[in-house]
């Protein structure tokens, strides 16, 4: 069994990959994938790929690392990779999340990039396991035509490979692409290929060697708006008087096909389904429960088109930009709200405090190109440290707010290319002495006291030169 596979592998590859084999033969070529199923969901502008891999260890040594390979063009758009493994037998299967980390291999063919899945239990020789991998691509639907008029619908290209790019031999694989509607202009055929309803099926393909690639192009209608937040700055300000003030500054753009030519309000109002079908009219922001003092404005004032619905579990803020966003149109706005502090600030066991808050963007179905989270700690807090479930750029700043003397420490975290799935929590730990809370009131009180003393003194001093 082992020998023919290796033989085909060698046949299919260059001298370069031969070297590659020699160097790293043990982890890569002990494993092979007996069955792979890939479901690509292109209904919204975030491309979701569900990959089910059945990995078998055909080698002699146990291994605990499984590699995923991506072509370099896709890696730039890759927002997140998650891997799950099913545990237990039929009845009580539980999904266990596995660690996934980007990995550099020195001699990857054609610049392929890798992610390593670390298995919880090493895979022994002859054993197999099933991995569920979910990864999301942003900006992967390319509008074609790139510019559309108001009444045209938005068509996009999706490029991928009919075969799963993998450093392993794949015995059998199938790919399904789910389109938002039945309107598919064209798609590349890599036999066997067939299309039923909103689904295009590629495969099954048998016995493909490692790094097989077969480019496909699907051209279909996708009339969902493509809300992209080019830049989001979230500022979370902690006040130990009981409030958590969140201010979010958005630069929103419709990332779909660019609007061309006329925008006619009369068409837009009288034929809403035909005209401007892909325009972005409203967005939903999911805010924490017990939110208060919500505002929604931009640099020229309040935007009156928003609705807030609150219940005990969540708050939903439905916002409309000042004008419907067509492809390529931009808007900027600010959402701000206050939250009760006790829901988010806790004391850790080592007498430090920590803030537990969501990292990502509260807008649903929205891609964030660049996210900056700033946590403004109260004046006088020390030793800040942030715990974030994924790698981010971090640094510290100082901010001066109401009557500050030494300034507040700001923990700044930056992340690029973020999707709503990543709205996980992060923690910021710091130490704070409650006496600092009284600093500003005392300062004010003493300032007023001194002012009155000065007044009294002035009234009792005779400043005239001549009596």
């Amino acid at each position: 069994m082992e020998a023919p596979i290796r033989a085909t592998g060698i046949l299919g590859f260059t001298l370069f990959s031969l070297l590659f084999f020699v160097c790293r033969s043990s982890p890569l070529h002990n494993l092979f994938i007996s069955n792979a199923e890939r479901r690509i969901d292109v209904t919204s502008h975030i491309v979701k790929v569900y990959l089910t891999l059945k990995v078998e260890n055909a080698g002699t040594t146990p291994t605990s690392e499984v590699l995923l390979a991506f072509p370099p063009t896709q890696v730039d758009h890759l927002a997140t990779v998650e891997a799950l493994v099913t545990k237990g037998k039929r009845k009580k299967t539980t999904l266990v999340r596995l660690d996934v980390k980007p990995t550099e291999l020195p001699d990857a063919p054609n610049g392929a990039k890798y992610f390593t899945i670390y298995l919880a239990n090493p895979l022994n020789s002859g054993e197999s396991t099933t991995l569920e991998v979910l990864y999301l691509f942003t900006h992967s639907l390319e509008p074609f035509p790139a510019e559309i008029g108001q009444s045209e619908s938005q068509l996009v290209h999706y490029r991928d490979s009919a075969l799963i790019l993998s450093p392993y031999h794949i015995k059998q694989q199938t790919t399904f692409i789910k389109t938002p509607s039945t309107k598919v202009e064209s798609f590349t055929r890599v036999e066997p290929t067939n299309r039923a309803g909103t689904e295009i099926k590629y495969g099954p393909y048998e016995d493909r060697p490692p790094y097989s690639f077969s480019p496909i192009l699907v051209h279909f209608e996708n009339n969902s708006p493509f809300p992209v937040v080019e830049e989001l700055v979230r500022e979370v300000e902690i006040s130990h008087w009981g409030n958590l003030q969140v201010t979010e500054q958005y630069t929103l753009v419709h990332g779909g096909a660019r609007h061309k030519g006329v925008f006619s309000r009369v068409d837009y109002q009288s034929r809403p389904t035909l005209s401007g079908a892909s325009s972005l009219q409203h967005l939903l922001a999911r805010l924490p429960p017990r939110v208060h003092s919500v505002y929604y404005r931009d640099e020229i004032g309040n935007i009156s088109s928003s609705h807030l619905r609150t219940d005990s579990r969540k708050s939903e803020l439905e916002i409309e930009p000042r004008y419907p966003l067509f492809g390529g149109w931009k808007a900027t706005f600010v959402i701000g709200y206050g939250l009760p502090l006790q829901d988010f600030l806790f004391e850790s066991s080592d007498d430090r405090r920590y803030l537990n808050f969501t990292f990502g963007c509260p807008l649903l179905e929205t891609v964030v190109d660049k996210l900056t989270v700033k946590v403004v700690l109260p004046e006088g807090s020390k030793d800040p440290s942030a715990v974030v479930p994924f790698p981010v750029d971090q640094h510290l700043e100082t901010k001066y707010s109401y009557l500050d003397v030494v300034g507040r420490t700001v923990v700044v975290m930056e992340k690029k290319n973020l999707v709503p799935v990543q709205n996980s929590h992060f923690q910021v730990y710091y130490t704070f002495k409650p006496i600092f809370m009284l600093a500003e009131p005392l300062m004010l009180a003493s300032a007023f006291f001194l002012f009155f003393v000065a007044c009294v003194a002035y009234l009792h001093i005779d400043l005239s030169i001549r009596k």
Partner: protein
Amino acid sequence: MAAPETSTAAVPTLYTNNTLRNAFGGVLSFFILLLIGVLAFSIRLFSVIKYESVIHEFDPYFNYRVTQFLTKKGIYDFWNWFDDRTWYPLGRVIGGTVYPGLTLTAGTIWWLLNSLNIPLSVETVCVFTAPIFSAFASWATYLLTKEVKGVGAGLTAATLLAMVPSYISRSVAGSYDNEAVAIFALIFTFSLYIKTLNTGSLFYATLNSIVYFYMVCSWGGYTFIINLIPMHVLLCIVTGRYSSRLYIAYAPLVVLGTLLAALVPVVGFNAVMTSEHFASFLVFIIIHVVAFVYYIKGILSPKMFKVAVTLVVSVGLAVCCAVIAVLIALVASSPTKGWSGRSLSLLDPTYASKYIPIIASVSEHQPPTWPSYFMDINVLAFLVPAGIIACFLPLTDASSFVVLYIATSVYFSGVMVRLMLVLAPAACITSGIALSEAFDVLTRSIKFQLPGVSSGAEVDEGETSSETTEARNDEVKAEKPEEKSKDRPSKKSKKKEREHVEKPSAKAKVKTKAEKKRLLALPLEASAVSLLLLIVLGAFYVVHCVWAAAEAYSAPSIVLTSHTRNGLHVFDDFREAYAWLRHNTDVDDKVASWWDYGYQTTAMANRTVIVDNNTWNNTHIATVGTAMSSPEKAAWEIFHSLDVKYVLVVFGGLIGYPSDDINKFLWMVRIGGGVFPHIKEPDYLRDGQYRIDSQATPTMLNCLMYKLAYYRFVETDGKAYDRVRRTEIGKKYFKLTHFEEVFTTHHWMVRIYKLKPPKNRIRGKTKKSKSKTSSTSSSKRGGIRKNPWH
């Protein structure tokens, strides 16, 4: 009102008690003043509470933008600011053409707050500048009126000013305009002038010049001060009231004030060159002559003096004639007689409508109607005459100033509705005096006749009043209510009072103090009733002011609201359009619109405009007006030559917003026609009537403004019914060939069109096409399909 007096009952006339009571009165008036300040500030917050904290109207947006620039770039860049985003392609030197007082004030406040680490935005500071300064203005009113008629009148006047609707209309939160700080500066200058007049202190005279400098920085209305004060000085001299105090009050003001005024770039040499300032120099010369004469009179014997006078007068007359002749020749040589257009339209109310349509086109430059007086100063209009009479009894230097102030400001308010703002403080001061005097008399007569009040109290009462009001005597009080009662609404009480007043005024000559007190008293019932009526009058005023502040004057005009069955409906179309322009057009694109929207476009949309509310270049505005009144092709050529990319029109026909461009259109025609004679107003009128229905002239129905406003309007309701003009429009179906609609707001209030790029030169253009007109048009239509641009 008149708090220190009314709060005192029967207090023994011990010296210690008196000082204690004075102190108490002082503290009380301090707190009353504080509350007046709070009242003045908070009554102006309706706009923030009902709408939002946003800059209002048009000019405030420009001021806001300038303030933003100042806080971002600093003071030196501000002075040197050449703004290339307006008046394209001419630009505007902002640093040299703007009154910097307001901007510098708000910028300083912002800087101060930020250096205290209070992170308020520039916008917030700008929004709340006007309410803060109206609190200052009411305190300044207190100082002024106190100098004229004492603390009681001062507090009353301050209260009235804190909520006078005319002033509220210009100083609600968000109304970030020059007048917001200028009225404070105006009143404060006057109060310092009177303070100097009363004290003769050079310290106050210097302070007065500095405040005058602030006023010059703030508002073009400073010319009112520099003409009113000389008038008053002249009045004093003519009526034989010359004193060294008058000299000290006036001479330093002219010298220092003119020097300081010339420092302001926008005024510069105008401070000595224009006719607006001549009066002050003339009076400056006169006061010196008078001072010299008084001095000579002091050192010479009467006989010698007479000789000197004849000598000087004969020589002086000859010199004067020569000088005046030269002056007149100089002034007459200038076409506007050395006066600026706005000042001239003040002196001759018909001037603007005859020669400068651009000034006449502004609604706030129209003469006011009678209801607007009642709306803006309400009951003060009736109290003013009483106050004037109170000022005459007795006539002091200070009270004569108030009389002069009210007289001139009434005239100016009659010329321009905007100058109602200058009238408001004068009306408040005189009404404050009137009310305070009336209360004074009425409460005293009640107190006198109340059983169980000892005569000691009355004497004491007399003392307090003489402390608080220096310059009045008791005869005044006796006669005053008689005059006052003329204005009172109730005829019954008026009659009653008059009967009773006859007596005391006749007998007022009696000298002994106790007797005089008794004679001053009005009958108890009459006083009580008139007191009650006065309170009702005051209550009516307060109710009106609160209503005006809440309903009439707090709308920010960029956001409109209407009450429907489903609740409040918000029309936020202007900001929708400006936000669209800001985010979805190129940063250097030029936007053409009528000049009203220039400031807002530069401030909110951050796009270059052709003309704006500064209106300094009539030709440029006329060019835009001509383009709007021309047919599409000609308009396209004009706009294209100005490098315009977008044209913005305001259209209220769908929702019934009356101040839209179609209603302003005749002014565009007039102003355009004033410079480019091929635009003739009668072409747009059918039998002298402005109409857009089927009776409208073809010129009207083919002009750009009509087309841009009504393009595809018929498709909304099928009839094209204009809700503002209340008619169906004349031409319903038409196409645009040189413009394309790129944005229309939700309620169609703002429509933005883009100029189509110029046509490619058609190859077969030389083909003689007289016989082929139909075929070329069809080929053109064929071309539409091929070429997306045409």
